[in-house]
């Protein structure tokens, strides 16, 4: 996504993106916006196996932090912590992958923010990434 389009996103979202780049992954970027969600690529997303393809797209609402994240898209199926694959909410080739399918998005994990504490500030993006990493770890 060009800087011009990223500049059109709401200020709190851009603040969150800046925080993400400063504290977690300088290369984090918005690769697509579809409906109310942005697909944010995070290369430094901790996974269970060092041999896995790096990164994934967080589906973050453009209204973040005033709305909740919903879903993760990856290029390859996530490996489990012990063996096999992460099966929790896994949908290979789901329509939700389409906005980033052209750049490799192929696996959708339909994880919701249910029962999680609502984000309050743009800086809460760091906790959101940790939440995704925990879900990957717990499979």
């Amino acid at each position, binding site marked *: 996504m060009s800087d011009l389009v990223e500049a059109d996103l709401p200020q709190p979202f851009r603040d969150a993106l800046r925080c993400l780049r400063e504290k977690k992954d300088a290369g984090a970027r918005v690769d697509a916006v579809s409906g109310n969600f942005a697909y944010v690529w995070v290369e430094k997303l901790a996974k269970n196996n060092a041999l896995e393809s790096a990164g994934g797209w967080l589906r973050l609402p453009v209204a973040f932090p005033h709305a909740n994240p919903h879903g993760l898209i990856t290029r390859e199926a996530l490996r489990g912590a012990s063996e096999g694959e992460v099966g929790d*909410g896994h949908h290979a080739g789901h329509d939700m992958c389409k906005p980033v399918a052209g750049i490799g998005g192929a696996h959708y994990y339909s*994880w919701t923010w249910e029962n999680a*504490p609502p984000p309050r500030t743009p800086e809460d993006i760091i906790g959101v990434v940790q*939440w995704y*990493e*925990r879900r990957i770890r717990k499979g």
Partner: protein
Amino acid sequence: MGTGTERQETGKDVKHGVFVIFVGDIEEKWDEPTVTAKLIMEKAGVTEPDKFVLEALDHKGGDPVAEFSTNDPVDLSAKDRKFFRVTPGGGGRS
């Protein structure tokens, strides 16, 4: 006290007889070796600790090696119990 990348097996400060731990960048000192995750998170400023989990890290800014729910006891005398982070709990699927 260790540097950012130095591994610390426990938070015990032998000289002062307290356990010094870090929740993110926040330093906490505890006299007793076992404390609930709730108290650790509250001391770090978390207002609703029941909605979060406390993750023990292998070093500052490192990888989680254990996690504790709000009422879980945390043995600060154990290995890898010096650096922690607070992570939102919960989550479902659609």
